[in-house]
């Protein structure tokens, strides 16, 4: 089995991988449908189960969409993949900005962020200008955005407003753009298989976050930062990291890494992803919303996209730079 997989061409291997992932998703969807048909005995349990199912369905729907995005991106080539990820960035940033009220004076800076910084950053990815790509936002945009804001002649809460904008740009554009950048990273003797690297990153980070969530529900430890997250505590965080990193080691075969390296890379990505998720929770608490998409308030999102990708936005740049630095690419 393993040998015959090994003998396939790169694109056949990636195809097989997608086949596997789609099969898995279809299976989970089928199980969910069956679960939702079951009639529970008492109302309280029914309500609880309904809520759990609704949550799970949300995650499942996002997974389908994300996998489809990856698949279309892979089928249609790098430039389409870039456009798709740029759109994800765009919608995430739109969500972030919706819930971080801006003032009139921020208008020009926002236009810059959406229509200049975002396309330019993805253009840098597409043309493989990886050095400029790494510093363009943290150095140049960081300094340029406050200039645009200052010219708007509104000093009220100036620092706070710029911080919001810069955080939005950092997470939604800079972080997200590192995912397609992985696709374009060229390893020696690893041609055409960069999709595996993205798959590896997404899977280990997602596994760490899901494991952490499940363990914290079973363990019932006191949360470390209760004002920010009810589910975050050190033991379940450790469990999440362990699960993600071990899975990473098990997946070493599809990456250019040795098992030990795969473990370390997965570990780095999981630390960044889970802690990044915590940071985004803190930002949400500050805004007084439990989710970026919030049904109960006047401003509603088109789907809480940022809730699903925030971990990835933090993990991708750290992972990308670790890989580049370690392998000297």
């Amino acid at each position, binding site marked *: 089995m393993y040998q015959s997989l090994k003998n396939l061409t790169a694109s056949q291997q990636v195809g097989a991988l997608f086949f596997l992932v789609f099969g898995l998703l279809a299976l989970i969807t089928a199980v969910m449908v069956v679960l939702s048909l079951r009639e529970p005995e008492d109302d309280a349990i029914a309500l609880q189960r309904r809520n759990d199912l609704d949550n799970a369905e949300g995650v499942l729907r996002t997974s389908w969409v994300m996998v489809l995005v990856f698949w279309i991106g892979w089928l249609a080539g790098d430039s389409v993949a870039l456009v798709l990820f740029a759109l994800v960035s765009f919608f995430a940033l739109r969500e972030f*900005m*919706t819930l971080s009220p801006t003032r009139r004076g921020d*208008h020009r800076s*926002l*236009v810059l962020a*959406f229509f200049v910084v975002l396309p330019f950053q993805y253009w840098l990815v597409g043309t493989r200008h990886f050095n400029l790509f790494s510093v363009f936002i943290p150095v140049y945009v960081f300094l340029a955005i406050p200039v645009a804001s200052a010219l708007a002649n509104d000093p009220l809460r100036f620092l706070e407003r710029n911080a919001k904008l810069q955080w939005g740009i950092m997470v939604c554009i800079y972080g997200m753009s590192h995912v397609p950048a992985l696709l374009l990273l060229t390893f020696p003797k690893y041609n055409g298989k960069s999709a595996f690297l993205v798959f590896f990153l997404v899977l280990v980070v997602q596994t760490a976050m899901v494991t952490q969530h499940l363990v914290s529900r079973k363990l019932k430890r006191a949360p470390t930062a209760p004002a920010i997250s009810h589910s975050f505590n050190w033991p379940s965080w450790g469990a999440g990291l362990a699960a993600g990193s071990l899975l990473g080691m098990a997946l070493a075969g599809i990456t250019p890494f040795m098992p030990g390296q795969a473990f370390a890379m997965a570990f780095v990505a999981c630390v960044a992803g889970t802690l990044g998720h915590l940071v985004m929770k803190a930002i949400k608490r500050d805004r007084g919303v439990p989710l970026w998409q919030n049904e109960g308030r*006047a401003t509603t999102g088109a789907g809480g996209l940022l809730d699903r990708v925030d971990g990835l936005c933090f993990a991708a740049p750290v992972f990308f730079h670790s890989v580049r630095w370690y392998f000297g690419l």
Partner: protein
Amino acid sequence: MRATLMSYFLLGLIRFLTGSQARWWGCPPKAEQRIYFSNHQSHADLVMIWAALPKELRGRTRAIAARDYWTKTPFRQWITSAVFNVIYVARDRSSDEDPLEPLFEALDHGDSIILFPEGTRGHAEEPQPFKAGLYNLALKYPKIELIPAWINNVQRVMPKGEVVPVPVLCSVTFGAPIRLQADEERRVFLDRARSAVIALRDV
């Protein structure tokens, strides 16, 4: 043909920029004759409500637009008449005709209408006091439901004086229908209608 294409383009654009979400809070989206009235802070308000309505309602729902502003250039005229099929009203009282006359025609014809009872775009957090038009319509057409609506966030998309819109998620919240009560005075009714719109801000 060109008008249809333009309407799809605008629909796509406004969804891309704002998500244009409709929240049917106090009434379902039903294909019956209605008068929608809402706060007004931006030129995009009209397009927002229009894009938020489901397709079957969109065709029969017409907004009110000021004739002097929206017929000034051929393009403005084309977009308001061919694409949005608006009802023009005169803002100045030069003629003897009742300024509400075009609205009566549309309502008699069976169309629903979108009204911004402040009369003009506001800049404050809360809408300005409503003008009498809504009261006169309610008086003349007691059978038609009056639906309050709150348009949220659109003023952030394109503040006055800016030309490039910024993407922010916006929503239109539709509230429970209100009716003119027997012997209700004009000012009382208009204030009640205004608070019905404001109340939707926080739901």
